Structure formats: C-alpha cells, structure tokens
C-alpha cells in the first residue's frame, strides 16, 4: 500500500502547556503541532508526562497553563464527551456487561442513528479490525488481542478527528504486539484519521509513526521523524533511550552555523553537522555512533576510515553478536553489533580487531 500523502494542515496545536500537581510539574511548557492524518507518537519513560498530555487532549485533565486546540477549535472548557477525539485505553476499558456489538455501538446510541445505519457502521468497524462474526461474543469471553480490537473498533466507529491510543499494545505478548504494530499502521493509513500514540517502547514508536516526540521529565526533548530521531538524536538522553549509542568525547576545532570540526582521540578529526540544540561546554563536545554503524574488517580488508582495538567481551544474540571493543585512547570501550553471516560469533575474546566506520555516522549532540 502506498504511503498516504501528508497533509500540511495542523490537527492538534499544543501551545506552552504546563500541568502541575502541587510542586511537581508533570508537563512543563510543552508545545507541539500535530498534522492532519499523521501517525504521531509520544515516546518516553514512565513519568515523563506523555500520558498526561494525551489525557489533556482527550479532556480528562486540564492544563494548568497553556492551550490545546483540535481541528482549529480551542478545547478549553470543552468536556471530554464533546471533543472530536476518541481514546483507546491502556486497559481497553471494555464494558463487561455488554457484548462486542453493544460495546462498539455504545457511542453510536447517542447519535440516534437509524437501526440499519447503526448496524452497518458497527459491522464496518468490526470488519476494519478483523472481528467480523464476533459481534455476539460476551466481553468476558475475549482474548487480550480481541479486547484490543474491540476497543479500537469502538473508538473508530465514532469517526473521530483524532484517535488517542494510550499504550495500546503494552498488555500483549511480543509476537501479537509486533503483528498489531503492522495492523495499526495499516489501519491508520486506510482510515486517514490522525493517530496520537503514547508508548514507552522505542521500537513501537519507530515502526509505526510518521513523527515522534521524545519526552523526558515533563519536557519535549525532540520532535522528528523516526529516522531522524534514531540517527540524529539531539542529546545523550534521547540517544540512549532510542537504543545503544557509543559516546565519544571530542574537542571542537572549528564551529560555524551549520557544521562542526572536532578532534577525537580514537576517530581523529571529524567534520559533522551541527545539531540545533548544540551547546558546547568549553571546548568539548560529545559525538555518538550507533553500535551497528561500526563494521568489523575481516582479514586484510581495509577501509578509508577505521579504528583498531581489542575484543574484550562477546555476547551472542542469535542473528547478531554484540562485541565490546577496547580502543586505545577512548575512555570507554565501544559496543559493536555485527550480523553473524560472516562469523562474528566466532571472534575470540582478546583478539585484535579493526572496525570500519562512516564519519557521517558520528553525530554531535548536546550533553
């Protein structure tokens, strides 16, 4: 299926929103703009304020200061039942006294549709989440995955402008979760509704989203596409949260508007893009390189850019091997992940090793 073309219109505008509980700020001056038809993820560790923000979009919580608008309409003072948003709850919140059909039709009852029209929309929603034929099933007779689908159908049937998903996959086992990631993305592309997903799982966010906002301690650290977030994290915290990253200390030699030239002990002199939030501490800077961007050089192979060191640890993970390599001059050893096609799992601990890298893969970031 081709990707849905992105609209430029803004669906959700979050402007300087702060939410304090006493002295604690669950959300601190967050600003964000989410486009129409976008699959947007709020990613961060627990307690970072992502769920608070989602609940404020839904109307279950109100900003202490700042404003939220959905579809160009300010949401201040609008009760959750009057907002053009619907939510898929983390616990799914399936009504236990109703069957699947009645659960899905719950919100439609209020719209006073004709019986046939209501039935048609329920059937359509059940078909969208592949639950056709299970309409008469009781809420307590469903598996976790089915409950998740019912929750999804119940929200989608309302045809909201925005669908809010609060950690919808966290209760599913790994295999089902991966399958649902693909399905959710496919569904979002098919219906074209703006999805806002809250998750603490970086792979989930990377796999499904058009854009991701990474949050820490009530603040939004970075908003960008999955690829950019992964490859060019703005700071160490973001880099760390999105998977492994080797940090290398560097000395800034030259700095201008768009680029930096730095000296490192292990990697020599490197020219790199300057990140937006870059702030140098004295003459120092931090560079980062992902473990999979370091490749093992076999036998006599050479590369334009390489570092030499010694393997100190080896961890086997099936399709890949994780090597810890000590490089003279670097204070911390590098992690390297290498696929096992060429026998990386057979490299003896203590053996000398040479690693190739692309200087492009070394990114400067704020501390």
């Amino acid at each position, binding site marked *: 299926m081709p990707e849905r073309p992105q609209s430029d219109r803004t669906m959700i505008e979050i402007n300087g929103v702060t939410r304090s509980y006493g002295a604690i700020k669950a959300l601190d001056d967050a600003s964000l703009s989410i486009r129409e038809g976008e699959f947007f993820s709020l990613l961060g560790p627990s307690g970072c304020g992502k769920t608070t923000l989602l609940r404020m979009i839904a109307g*279950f919580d109100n900003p202490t200061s700042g404003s939220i608008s959905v579809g160009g309409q300010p949401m201040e003072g609008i009760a959750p*039942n009057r907002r053009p948003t619907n939510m898929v709850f983390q616990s799914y*919140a399936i009504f236990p006294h109703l069957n699947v059909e009645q659960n899905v039709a719950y919100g439609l009852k209020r719209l006073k549709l004709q019986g046939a029209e209501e039935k048609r929309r329920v059937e359509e929603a059940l078909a969208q989440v592949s639950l056709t034929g299970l309409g008469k099933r009781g809420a307590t007779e469903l598996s976790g995955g089915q409950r998740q689908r019912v929750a999804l159908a119940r929200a989608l049937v309302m045809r909201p402008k925005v669908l809010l998903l609060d950690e919808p996959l966290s209760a599913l086992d790994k295999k089902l979760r991966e399958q649902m990631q693909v399905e959710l993305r496919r569904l979002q592309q098919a219906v074209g509704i703006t999805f806002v997903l809250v998750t603490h799982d970086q792979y989930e966010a990377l796999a499904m989203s058009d854009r991701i906002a990474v949050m820490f301690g009530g603040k939004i650290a970075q908003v960008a596409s999955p690829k950019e977030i992964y490859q060019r994290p703005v700071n160490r915290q973001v880099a760390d949260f999105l998977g492994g990253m080797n940090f290398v200390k560097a000395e800034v030699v030259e700095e201008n508007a768009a680029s930096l030239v730095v000296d490192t002990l292990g990697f020599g002199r490197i020219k790199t893009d300057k990140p937006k939030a870059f702030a140098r501490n004295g003459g120092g800077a931090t560079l980062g390189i992902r473990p999979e961007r370091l490749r093992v050089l076999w036998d006599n192979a050479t590369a334009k850019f390489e570092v030499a060191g010694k393997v100190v640890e080896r961890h086997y993970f099936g399709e890949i091997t994780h090597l810890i390599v000590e490089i003279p001059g670097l204070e911390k050893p590098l992690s390297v992940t290498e696929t096992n096609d060429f026998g990386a799992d057979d490299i003896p601990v203590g053996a000398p090793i040479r690693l190739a890298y692309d200087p492009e893969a070394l990114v400067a970031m704020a501390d």
Partner: protein
Amino acid sequence: MSVTAEGLPPLRMTRARRNALLQSEPVQGFALISPTFLYALILLVLPILVVIAHSFWTQHYLTIDRTFTLENYRVALTEPIYRDLLWRSLYISLTVSFFTVVLAYPIAYFISFHGGRHKSLWLFLITIPFWTSYLLRVMSWKVILGYNGVLNSGLMGLGIIDEPSTALLYNSSAVIITLTHAWAAFAILPIFVSLEKVDRTLVEAATDLGDGPLGSFLRVTLPLSAPGVISAALIVMIPTVGDYVTPKLVGGKDGVMIANAIQAQFGKASNWPLGAALSVTTMLIVSLMAGATVLIIRALQRLAR
C-alpha cells in the same frame, strides 16, 4: 475430585489414596467449614425442622396431637386477619427495602467516588448509630414522631401545622420510617462494595464515547453496581418481613405485622402449630419475593443496555 468419586476399596485405604483424599479441594473445603456448618445445623436447621413438624400437628390445650393435618395452613392462608397481616408485612418490607436502597445508593456513591482518602472515616461514621442498642434507636424515633415530639413541635414552631399531627406515630408509616433508618447501613455497605469494584476507566470510556455524567451513570455505573443493589435489597427485605420489635413499639394497631401474630400464637394464644404454619408460610412467601426481586432487578439491568 475424581479420587473421591471413584469407588475406593472398602476398609483398607492406601496411604497415598488417603493423602490424596485429604488434599483434595472439596475435602479441605468441608473440613474448613465444618465447625460453622455443625453450628448452623444444630442452631438453624434443627429448629426449622421442629417448626415445620409442628405446622402439621394440632394443639389440644396442653397436649399436641401428632397426626398429620393441613388445617393450620388452611387457617393461615384463608383467615382474613392473617392474610391482611401477611400482605401488610410484605408491603412494609418492600417499601422499606425500596426506600433504603434509594437513600443508601447516593451515600454509597458519594463515599466510593468522592470519599477520596477519607473513605474509611466515612464508613466508620455510618456505623456510629450501631453503638447504641436497637431499642434505644426505635425509642428515639418515638421521641421524634410522637404527639409532642420533635417533628410536631418543629412543624408547629414553623407555623406549617396548627396542632400536633397524630398521623406520624403508631401506624405503618412510622414502622417504615424507623426500619428505613435502622437498615440504612446494611444497604450502604454492599452497594459501596460493588461501586468500589466498578473500574473508573469504564466511566471515562463512556464519557469519551459521548456520555454526559448522567448517561455514563445510567449506562455503566448503575448496571455494574446491580449486584450490590440486589444484595442490599435482599439484606433489608428478608429480615424486615419478620420484624417484631419495631411494629410493637412504633406500629400501634395499624402497624402490626405478621411476626406479632406469630409471637401471639407461640405466647398468649398458645397455639404452636398455627404459629408454626404462619412462620413456614411467611418463609416461603419471603423466598418467592426475594427470588422475584432478583429477577426484576436483573431484567431492569438488561433493559438499561
């Protein structure tokens, strides 16, 4: 389970089998309840059997004729006085359960949904009236409802009535008012428990799907708390049918209930078999009424969808 069911060899039991038997869940269960079970058997089942037996016998002054007869039941069911008393008892107990549940629900709801961290304090406050004897509580209602009572003086003081009303005390309304107050806590607790079990996310989900506060209450909270409402109604209904003290003290002659008649048969009238037949009839009718109440509330619950 299958170990106990399948024919064990008579007399000799291997140790393994005995252990399996001792560890089986039903056996452990019976062992656990056996003290209470014996207690209930001796103090509850045996007296009921004695009462049932008596209801089929006849009293001849000081002796009891033990030939089987249905005469007592004929009297109990056809004699207008007993029929009226039975109907009145049922009416009073139904009215009391209705009002108790209706008044208890908002209190339970408040404690459960808005009690915050003071929930246990609120529950504790509800039990305070129980620190005094039931008789004292009934007496205080006499003070409130009496001819020169608090209510009459208050209404006269406000100029709402000119002379004390006699309609307040010594009739079935007085019994209803007193019982409704007396049983309030017994209705609040089961409703509170069932409201506590209602997942708050479900209420949020209902709101998210467009329901206002009333809508989500009627479509989610109320149906899900129905088990509490059923037990509250039953807990109040069953004992109040047979209440004896309250009508005696505040009921006057218009508030006499079936239990007073039963007491008279076992006491002054000294006709135990008739008293027994009245008791058994009441028991059966109460069971039927309780069953009907459960069915009606369930039907209403289904209707709410």
